[in-house]
């Protein structure tokens, strides 16, 4: 009976190279047969497509000029965008009054910046009231009739600034509503709870387009015959209700993230319901919900484009009407849509980067 002899394999030679560009290429591009084929296919198709695209987008594109006759080269006609830039950004808002739109955008940016810069002690006390006042200050300035400026009716508002301001105004007002609905959903009172659940599920389960449609065809029926509610205001109401439902769910998950010890601690020092909720729980909920709030804002911001279906002159609607302008009938649709796509992409992408960085900052877990 022979005993099997243990024979070690001969030592492997050292790897040829584990650092440097060549090793990187070998590891990341050509590590297996599948990867070699994939890399070659991808590089091949990039070589086939990219030069033509770059040429069309930039090199042979028409950059300067004021009218369609300036688009002489083969590439994209960016003259179309620059000629319509004011409408794309401001809609038909009168040129002399554009400072008001800019002021509103500036105030919005200012308050957002403020809420990041302020020291913790002041943040909630200053930023929350400032945010809540913002939509109404914006309304006063944009309309103007109530503070002695020439009135600009809402049918002249439009363009990209409308997308931004409408989304911002909706999320700000949806904040307290969403918070109340979330509290209602967690409440012990059965009737209040079922009302909240119904509201939340209705607005979350309905297509946003159907809601806008209801805003334009059904809401007028709900008001007394002599009350004529402005179309943009109706849209705003719809957006606020829609947002509130999503925010309520965001807050609900925020509430669930707060350890029950926080509630018990607040109870133990004898705080009442509202003191407990507003002083102890709310700040913590806001903190953990921040990335999701931003994600909800991105969603609503993208959804403002849906307004074109009920003929609100938001950015894409302006582009589409510019395309049918008799001076520009030359098929610049692709340029127009690419431009809108780029603007939305840039805004949404930077916001999602912000959300990720907040999430990383807040993530204190150690399981990495």
């Amino acid at each position, binding site marked *: 009976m022979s005993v099997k002899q243990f024979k070690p394999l001969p030592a492997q030679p050292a790897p040829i190279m584990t650092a440097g560009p060549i090793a990187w290429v070998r590891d990341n591009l050509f590590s297996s047969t599948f990867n070699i084929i994939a890399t070659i296919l991808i590089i091949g198709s990039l070589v086939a497509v990219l030069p033509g695209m770059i040429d069309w987008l930039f090199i042979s594109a028409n950059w300067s000029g004021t009218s369609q006759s300036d688009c002489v080269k083969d590439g994209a006609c960016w003259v179309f965008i620059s000629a319509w830039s004011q409408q794309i950004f401001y809609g038909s808002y009168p040129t002399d009054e554009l400072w008001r739109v800019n002021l509103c955008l500036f105030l919005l940016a200012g308050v957002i910046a403020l809420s990041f810069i302020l020291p913790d002690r002041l943040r909630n006390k200053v930023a929350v009231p400032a945010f809540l006042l913002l939509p109404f200050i914006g309304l006063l300035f944009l309309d103007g009739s109530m503070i002695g400026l020439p009135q600009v009716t809402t049918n002249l508002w439009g363009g990209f600034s409308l997308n931004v301001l409408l989304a911002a105004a909706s999320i700000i007002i949806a904040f307290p509503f969403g918070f109340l609905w979330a509290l209602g959903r967690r409440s012990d*009172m059965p009737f209040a709870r079922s009302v909240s659940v119904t509201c939340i599920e209705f607005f979350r*389960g*309905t*297509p946003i387009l159907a809601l806008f449609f209801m805003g334009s065809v059904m809401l007028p029926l709900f008001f007394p015959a002599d009350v004529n509610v402005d179309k943009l205001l109706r849209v705003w109401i719809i957006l606020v209700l829609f947002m509130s439902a999503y925010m309520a769910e965001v807050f609900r998950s925020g509430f669930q993230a707060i350890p029950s010890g926080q509630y018990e601690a607040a109870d133990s020092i004898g705080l009442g319901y509202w003191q407990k909720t507003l002083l102890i729980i709310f700040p913590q909920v806001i903190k953990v919900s921040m990335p999701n709030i931003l994600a909800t804002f991105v969603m609503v911001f993208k959804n403002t484009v849906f307004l074109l279906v009920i003929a609100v002159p938001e950015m894409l609607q302006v582009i589409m009407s510019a395309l049918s302008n008799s001076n520009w009938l030359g098929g610049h649709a692709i340029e127009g849509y690419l431009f809108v*796509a780029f603007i939305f*992409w840039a805004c949404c992408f930077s916001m999602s980067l912000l959300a990720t960085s907040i999430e990383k900052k807040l993530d204190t877990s150690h399981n990495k």
Partner: protein
Amino acid sequence: MFSKKTAEQIKFETRPNRVGAKAFYNNPKYRGWIYQSVLFVFLIGFFYSIVSNTLDNMSAQGIKSGFSFLNTSAGFDVLMSLIPFDTTDSYLQIFIIGILNTILVSVIGIIFSTILGFIFGIAYFSRNWLINKIAVIYVEIFRNIPVILQVIFWYTVFNALPIARESLNLGDAVFLNVTGLYFPKLVGESGSGVVYGAIVVAILAIFAIKRWAKKRQELTGEQFPILWTSLGIFFGLPLLALLITGLPFHLDYPALKGFNFKGGISVIPELISLAIALSVYTGAFIAEAVRAGIQSVPQGQTEAARSIGLKESKIMSLIIVPQSMRVITPMLNSEYQSLVKNTTIATAIGYPELFTVFAGSALNQVGQAVEIMFMTLAIYFVINMVISLVMNHFNKRTELSAR
């Protein structure tokens, strides 16, 4: 071990004596009733004013109420319908056509977005740097552009295709032009029933083999090559039936007659644009969900699988993906539901789904906004509920059982 309510009550009873601290409105039990009664009265008032205003406005505008309009003839044509239709048919038929078209585009969208989502979600973990970057770029581009813009974009691209006479031609069988996509239709002749029967038998056989193989693996630990056997049965059995019955099928090729193609199956450009936009947009979100799901599986699982010598491809399909489904399935549920809701963007390009034909065209003609919106929304709720039920059933099977 106090329930919330008793804790509140204890607090109430032990609170230091303030003025009115023992008043009935400070008792949590009564306070709850007071809040809820106020809410109730407010809601009653709110709905009363809405209903009375609506009735007043409708009678002032001469709009009838009730559902009798459903039986009257619609008098307009629909671009595409899965059931026979002509302009004398009723609004009820329009409603059904709309539902069918919505379901059609939803099913197409769900299938393709899932495929795209899983491909790019898994591609994110590829060791190939280029594949990884392509997955990242796909997700970041398509989820950050409004879906309505995407559908209009694809529709514009479609409209730039050549006319029927100069169609893009694939082997004289598949044609693509500005009026749509055309491909051959399989037409069964006598004896084709046997082949369909063979397909059913094959599917049943696969299920039986799967159960038997699972049982055998549990008893003996031996694996059975289920995938290859299933593929063999699925294609082999019908093929056998085909040969025995003497190929009782022929292809109906689309052919250019006059200005357009006749015969075969034709797909309208609106459907294609909508399906592409929805699949690509939702696919980006599903890819994110798949990525999050795979990342949620602890690293130790991969290491354990490597240590017992599993191949990399087997690790993904046997260890990582099944566990990540716990995270992915609930997210898929909400993505599918938002896809169904997003089919309403069809109204921007005119694909005749429920929202376009019923809440759009029919509402324009009848004017009964309340009834029509009610019916339309009810359908979206039902579809989403069905999706939710199916996905929850699926979720039950994949979720971690607590010990």
